[in-house]
């Protein structure tokens, strides 16, 4: 545990030393804030138009549904672009500079290295997505009403999705020593796993429908709406566990290389 903590804190320090963390945080928060402002403005415009319509029934949508669910889905889409950059350094840099050899010959277990790196990237991800809890507070103090259950379910979904993204990113970075290749491969894999749910809508791919169960988006949709389904939670935990284990195997495969 102590060794995981040492690797974790060093990874975080390195991310901030190299300014990558600052840049990612700043850009991610700026774009997600823009999404929030745009969704609130859109909600405000629609609700004003609704109210201005004579004889209109009560509004069929609320602030939580239109702004928050939309925000969570948009931020998840944004994470699709940012996570490959966040994780590309994990093992690529160690491999490129040769420090992996140094690290793995210290009295450290391979899984401690993998967990230390995963947790540090995940911490950065949490920092990037933390404002998602702040925005509803802002609306709350401005007099708006939110269903806090939905907020927390959506945030839980964002975190689980992030864990899945990062585990895949860490795995891909363990396969190559080139950061560009790592981030492109990771992005490609994430996009495929994101869009695979769309197969259901094409009758031609009827036989491949089962693959939509692995869609990262499909499992996220219900959480973003505030529905906490244990199957979705288990899916993300299993997904992250699978790729962390695959990373471990990838590290052990060094026995085959000269």
């Amino acid at each position, binding site marked *: 545990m102590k060794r995981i903590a*040492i690797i974790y804190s*060093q990874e975080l320090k390195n991310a901030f*030393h190299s300014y990558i963390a600052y840049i990612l945080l700043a850009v991610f928060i700026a774009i997600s804030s823009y999404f929030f402002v745009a969704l609130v403005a859109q909600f405000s415009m629609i609700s004003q138009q609704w109210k201005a319509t004579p004889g209109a029934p009560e509004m069929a949508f609320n602030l939580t549904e239109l702004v928050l669910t939309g925000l969570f889905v948009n931020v998840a889409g944004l994470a699709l672009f940012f996570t490959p950059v966040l994780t590309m350094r994990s093992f690529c840099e160690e491999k490129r500079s040769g*420090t992996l*050899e*140094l*690290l793995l*010959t*210290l*009295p450290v277990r391979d899984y401690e290295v993998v967990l230390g790196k995963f947790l540090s990237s995940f911490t950065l991800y949490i920092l990037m997505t933390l404002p998602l809890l702040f925005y509803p507070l802002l609306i709350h103090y401005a007099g708006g009403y939110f269903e806090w259950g939905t907020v927390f379910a959506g945030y839980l979904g964002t975190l689980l999705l992030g864990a899945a993204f990062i585990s895949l990113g860490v795995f891909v970075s363990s396969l190559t020593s080139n950061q560009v290749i790592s981030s492109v491969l990771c992005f490609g894999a994430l996009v495929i796993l994101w869009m695979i749910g769309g197969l259901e809508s094409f009758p031609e791919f009827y036989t491949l429908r089962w693959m939509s169960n692995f869609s990262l988006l499909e499992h996220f949709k219900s959480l973003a709406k505030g529905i906490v389904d244990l199957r979705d939670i288990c899916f993300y935990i299993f997904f992250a566990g699978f790729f962390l284990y695959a990373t471990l195997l990838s590290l052990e495969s060094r026995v085959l290389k000269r």
Partner: protein
Amino acid sequence: MSIPVLKVRNLVKEFGHFKAVSGLTFDVEDHQILGLLGPNGAGKTTTLRMLSGFIPATQGDIFIAGHSMRDDSLKARRQIGYLPESVPLYREMRVTEFLNFIAGLRGLSRCELKEDRERLLEHLGLVRVAKQLIGKLSKGYRQRVGLAQALIGSPKLVLLDEPTSGLDPEQTVEIRNLISKIKETSCVIMSTHILSEVEKVADRVLIMSEGAIVASGSPVDLNKRLTMGRNFRLGIRGDEKQILEILNSVPEVVSVQRQNEHNGIFYYHVQTQQSEEIQPKLAQVLVRSGLKLVELTEDEVNLEEIFLKLVRDERKAVPV
């Protein structure tokens, strides 16, 4: 006799069908520097990588301070300090920060860490650059930082892969002196293909070729054991024909080669059989015959010649 810190038993490493290391068996005792010598591709780095625990052996085992690398890798690795050939360092870290990181992973307490770190910074002349980013240091200083990380926590076994590679002559001498000091506290295995380095630093030499040990012993022992005879340079004033007759009359003389002539002095390279008494015997025979002996010096057969001979013999022995 002291207990060996490192015991290597029948170590084999195969990469697919390629056998990089075959059947290494040797021991290293405490306070000893073992030079691992061999041409590029001899299997030195693969051996060090197995000794460090980075890659597992296909067969055989390594025991470090009694801990098996195969069965108890973590405890075995606790006894090792390793500096790979490329001197990999975290360039974005400061020197002290890097040493703290390594010491933390080696399980040193905060108190031990501080004491050990300060000692090494002082010992390796790193005090001045302790707060600097590693990436900004010169190659010589980076090499010292690499050595410091290998030594922190006073490991029983220090593995150095080509520790002076890429350094200028002044830095090479500095690092060589530092390595000599390490044996006061640990035993050291250093791989190199630079023969003079091993001769100057190592107590024992292990010569590798194509993954196997072809000779081992101290540099002096190797000289004695592996040279087939002795070589002398003689400077003699007198009649050339007479000189040759006298030299060839000595039964131990194997060959006589005239090298040059300068101011009436003839210089020869004389190869003799291995004999303790041959040098005074040659002098006696020449002086008694009335010739003037100007020079009689023995050519030291250096490790390089032994090394080349062994490697050549090894290659000849393997049918292509």
